[in-house]
């Protein structure tokens, strides 16, 4: 564990949620096109996910970038593993890899 309480909070959230999306806004009202694109892909696959709205929490907004060593939001975590941001998730979806990725990790897809 780190000595940074925000990082500890993020680590706990990631451990407790199989699919977690750090995004701007909410799945119903995304506040950024990149966040909206990730929500759209996950919804299309029927993946249940939890989201964190970084616009509501400045500490997490900065903290998640440091935690993942990744400069942008959205960020997607699956079973504790950092999958990537919008570009990677979209590319995996378009190349037909994303469905298998979730299935391999035991994430159910309700279509």
């Amino acid at each position, binding site marked *: 564990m780190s000595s940074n309480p925000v990082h500890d909070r993020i680590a706990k959230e990631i451990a407790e949620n199989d699919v977690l999306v750090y995004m701007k806004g909410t799945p119903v009202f995304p506040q950024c096109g*990149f966040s909206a694109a990730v929500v759209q892909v996950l919804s299309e696959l029927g993946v249940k996910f939890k989201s964190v709205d970084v616009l509501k929490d400045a500490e997490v907004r900065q903290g998640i*970038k440091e935690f993942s*060593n*990744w*400069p*942008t*939001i959205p960020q997607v975590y699956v079973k504790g593993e*950092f*999958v*990537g*941001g*919008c*570009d*990677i998730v979209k*590319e*995996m979806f378009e190349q037909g890899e994303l469905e298998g990725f979730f299935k391999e990790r035991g994430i159910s897809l309700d279509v």
Partner: protein
Amino acid sequence: MAMSAREIEKAICAALPDAEVTITDLAGDGDHYAAMVVSGAFKGKTRVQQHKMVYDALAGRMGGQLHALSLQTAAKD
């Protein structure tokens, strides 16, 4: 302050000298770009690692000075 396509390309090529970089100004506003980067240095790396190498090349400007850079990477044979 936004970055020009030329500056983005220069920064990427400084870190990855063999990189073939194609940049598209998506909105024509000098602030929303798409970049395709092909480099031999990406071989054997995951997508996350490849994207991190490009972000490292941009040295902290990504997400700040550079608002939106949609990134696609591929390994060169």
